[in-house]
């Protein structure tokens, strides 16, 4: 009996390790070797007790694309770069497309949703980042890596500067000018 329970404990330990490893596996690979795209976003700052502070990012161009189909249904979207260097959807498909870059997403409330809705940040930087964005409305975008339909966020940029750097610069400027 003790052996049986011990094997149950070992199985549990393996499961507890394998589930997060599975979550990491394709994300890590996509991040390292996926093709990079830029999506325009609008960031807002909320809070998660477990995972920390983050910016809610709404993909402005993608979310506007309307699509027919049942809510929750899986869809593939072929993506391409526009003339301005930002990614957009070229076409939708029910089957995995071949030979082109595509992303997996779901239909929600009549539009296509990518599994990207937050960007985690340092707890002090996140609220500041939102204020800076709200007050100045600069161009914000996320860079994502795309591979075999998987998509992983690699960075968030404002005016072409990584948001962490941008916020730090702004905070230093504010300190220098005596705002803070």
């Amino acid at each position, binding site marked *: 009996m003790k052996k049986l*329970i*011990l094997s*149950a*404990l070992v199985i*549990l*330990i393996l*499961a*507890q*390790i394998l*589930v*997060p490893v599975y*979550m*990491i596996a394709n*994300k*890590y690979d996509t*991040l390292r070797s996926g093709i990079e795209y830029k999506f325009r976003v609008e960031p807002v700052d909320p809070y*998660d*007790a*477990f*995972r*920390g*502070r*983050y910016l809610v990012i709404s993909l402005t161009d993608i979310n506007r694309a309307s699509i027919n189909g049942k809510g929750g249904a899986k869809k593939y979207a072929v993506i391409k770069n526009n003339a301005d260097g930002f990614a957009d959807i070229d076409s939708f498909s029910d089957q995995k497309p071949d030979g082109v870059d595509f992303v997996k997403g779901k239909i929600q409330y009549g539009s296509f949703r990518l*599994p*990207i*809705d*937050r*960007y*985690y*940040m*340092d*707890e002090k930087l996140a609220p500041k980042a939102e204020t800076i964005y709200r007050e100045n409305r600069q161009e914000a975008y996320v860079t994502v890596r795309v591979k075999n339909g998987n998509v*992983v*966020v690699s960075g968030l940029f404002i005016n072409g500067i990584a948001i*962490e750097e941008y916020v730090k610069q702004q905070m230093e400027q504010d300190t220098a000018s005596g705002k803070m």
Partner: protein
Amino acid sequence: MNRKKWLFEEIEKWQTEQIISSEAAAALRQRYVKQASPGMLILLFSIIGAVLIGIGIILISAKNWYELPIALRVGLSFLPLVLSQGLCLFTFLRRMDSPGWREGSAVFMSLSVFAVIALIGQIFHLPGDFGGYVITCGLLSLPVVYILNAASPLIIYYYAIIYWSFDSAGEFKIALVPLALGLFVLALPYATSVIRSNKSAAKTVYVSLITLIAGFLVLLAFAFALQMGALALLLLYFVLLLAFDRTDDPGKAVFYMIGLMGAFTLLFILSYKDVWDGISVSYAPYLAEDYTVLGIAALLAIGAVYFAVVRKAREPLTSMIVLFSILIAGLRLSGIFKDAPEIFAIGTVAANLLIFASSLYFIVRGSMKTSFLDVNIGMIFLCLLIVLRFFDWNLDFLLRGIIFVLLGVMFLAVNLYLVKKRKGGGLQ
């Protein structure tokens, strides 16, 4: 009765029967009191310590160490988990006899699972889906409850399924509703075994209390998701609890008291005409889902009847409320309300009569057993019923007047019956 209480009563008997001297009795009492208190303290401190460390780790990881390379962050995120797993293995192999080690390492393992999954979500900026996150962590934590016979992580599991069921219900993911009940059932064998063995009063009360609250909340999530038939369903849940009419046993007393409070709260809600009017309104888009509710309600009803009849629960109240719940379900199923919504007036009257009859039942039972608790429960229900109906502006004055007169006459009739019975020697 727990073992210590039993032992102390036995020592008392041995002393009066002069099997042991009063000094020996005192020494024995002291010995067991001394043994018990540090054990309890160590247990509590182990749980509190493990919970604080686990929460600390979650908060430290939530800080976001974005300056470190991703590979290092991923590696570090597994550190607390592996540490907790090592602790659990050690506990299993060497410290299974110590509740402090079992509870402490188990709760630490549960929280470490939450930490590692949270951290991976953070590192890779995974989408929100908090419901999915907590239920994944909850499911990965539950087995340790069984493996280490540790009750403390149970509350974390219940939190996960409650959050997940409300999350799913809020988004009308109807298909997930029966699954939520299934996940709740996964914890029941452990909860039942703790309550049955009743080795420690504190553990029994803790497990039964959180299990009951979790069960109630999961069913409440159903109610939100399915919109209909919910009251009948909840009522049956409480009726099931009423079958545990064992107020002398700490574990079962919890079941009974929550059942009583829940059943009567719902009966009072159902005693309003407005609520019945609400039930009679047709919710066409949800009719299909309604069968899920009714299916589960039917299962619960069978359970309630089983407890009330087969197990011969002492409580006739249970049978009355079961009948009433079946009446509600029957009226809903028959579809009569579509043509004649006024039929639901029967429901209002039935609920009021049921509360009235139950109040009387408690008063009578209490005075027969000289139980002030019963008499008081009965009086409180009765007074509440009178006050609520007096101020119920949905009923017209004439109707209210008639109800009050009828109730008064019934009251006097019961009184007369009691007096006659007492004179005849039927009552003591």
